[in-house]
């Protein structure tokens, strides 16, 4: 889920931009110094692969459709740092080409969909499949990595939106986590499926390309990278934290309040308010359009 601009609190997206920016610089530097030269064209083509593969939709839960995210898969094939950079490339391109996700929120999206999926997917895979990966365990290690990467990513997204007071945690967390827990089956299944396909057709790809491993020190740094800003955010936005958490804990109380508001929203005495808002929207849009047309016409003549 790509977060557009305007949803996250300023502290939140600033912190995440800094975090993602630093992570990209770190990954780029490590790859430049340690990875083989052939990783560059490989990451390039695989960026295009992920972008294109996300066009292959499959139906989910009647109506909506999902697609492969690919963070875990890439990290398993390229190693976590190269996988992360590849995903970051895709996310930047999606923001610039398709306006999928905002510009200021890019850091958050890169963190959620790039970093969290890559590192968690890689870590889980290495843990479950062993190193070097054993064929029998390849499929279900891939499945768990794919599934978990998606759920963790969704949880982070919900946390960010909740702490920014954009979408309250008691709505966002179960919704995002629940939805992605189901979609995660597809991600896990496809990740496993592709890995199994590869091991039959090109087994050298699974072993050969992840030449940049994460050592213990790297994991410590990565964890520190994540823990520190999260700590800072929690301390800074601590006023936001207790309320939603509290309400989440006292679940019975949380259920009745929104229902009252829902009734309120649709009551007839709100209609003039809505009408006024709609009128402003229409007039405002027309005004903007007219001004733009005017300027366009005049500048064309000059």
């Amino acid at each position, binding site marked *: 889920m790509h977060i557009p601009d305007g949803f996250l609190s300023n502290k939140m997206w600033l912190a995440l931009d800094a975090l993602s920016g630093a992570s990209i610089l770190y990954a780029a530097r490590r790859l430049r110094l340690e990875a083989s*030269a052939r990783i*560059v*064209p490989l990451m390039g083509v695989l960026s295009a692969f992920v972008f294109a593969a996300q*066009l292959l939709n499959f139906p989910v839960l009647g109506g909506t459709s999902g697609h492969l995210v690919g963070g875990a898969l890439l990290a398993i094939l390229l190693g976590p740092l190269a996988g992360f950079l590849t995903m970051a490339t895709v996310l930047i391109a999606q923001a610039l080409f398709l306006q999928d996700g*905002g510009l200021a929120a890019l850091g958050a999206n890169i963190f959620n969909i790039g970093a969290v999926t890559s590192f968690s997917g890689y870590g889980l895979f290495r843990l479950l499949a062993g190193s070097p990966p054993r064929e029998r365990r390849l499929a279900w290690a891939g499945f768990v990595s794919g599934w978990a990467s998606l759920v963790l990513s969704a949880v982070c997204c919900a946390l960010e939106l909740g702490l920014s007071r954009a979408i309250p945690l008691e709505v966002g967390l179960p919704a995002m986590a629940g939805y992605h827990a189901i979609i995660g089956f597809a991600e896990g299944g496809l990740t496993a*499926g592709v890995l199994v396909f590869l091991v039959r057709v090109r087994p050298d790809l699974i072993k050969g390309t992840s030449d940049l491993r994460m050592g213990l020190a790297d994991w410590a740094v990565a964890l520190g990278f994540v823990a520190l800003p999260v700590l800072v955010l929690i301390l800074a936005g601590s006023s936001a934290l207790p309320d939603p958490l509290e309400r989440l804990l006292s679940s019975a109380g949380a259920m009745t*309040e929104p229902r009252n*508001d829902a009734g309120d929203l649709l009551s007839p005495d709100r209609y003039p308010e809505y009408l006024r*808002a709609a009128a402003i929207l229409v007039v405002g849009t027309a005004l903007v359009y007219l001004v733009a047309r005017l300027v*366009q016409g005049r500048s064309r003549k000059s």
Partner: protein
Amino acid sequence: MRHNFLDRYAGLDSPLHALEARTKLVGFLALILGVLWIPAGSNLIFFAYFLLTAVLMGISQIPLGYIVGRTLAILPFVVLAGLAAPWGDHFEGVRLVAIVLRSILSLLFLILLTSTTAFAELLRGLRKLGCPKILVLNLGFLYRYLFVLTEEVLRMRQARDCRRVGRAPALAEFKLLGAMLGTLLVRSFERAERMYQAMLSRGYDGDLRILAPRKFTWLDLGFLAGVTLFIVGVRP
């Protein structure tokens, strides 16, 4: 997906098109930041920003239908997500409106940035601003091979549809999708290998090099100055 949808209007002739990529990157990002700092309820400030986008859209000579189209495509999600906001302790209509307006404004500035700048030029600007070379190159490769791979995907999808009668059971669909992705992936690896050989043949030695962008002119300075004045001036 048409081949030229990315740089469709990047070749037009307007003051915005003439600006250097760095200028636009910095300028529009600053404007987006300005938008994100508009407090909820400051209708006049929102109005001022909308006026600015109108003027910029006009100057850019980009067909308005295109801009509106792109905005509308993203809008449903924004509004939907924004509607979840009021389900809090009480209906915060003002905040909902602010969220939606900020999203739209940021989107408009983003569209203005990308539609007036050729992608290759944008990449050079990014590099000059300090973006790691490997990331810039990656974006370049993505741009270059996106259509090659998209066409392969579409062809595979067509082939799949040709051989399908009705809807197969979910599991079979999945297996097919997995095989398609796997094939696409193997082809990608093979292409990357040939690309690597081609790069080596032209002197690639692991060190990455990128061309320089356009020159910085008075127009660029003027734009940046104007943006700064606007952001600083239009505040509560």
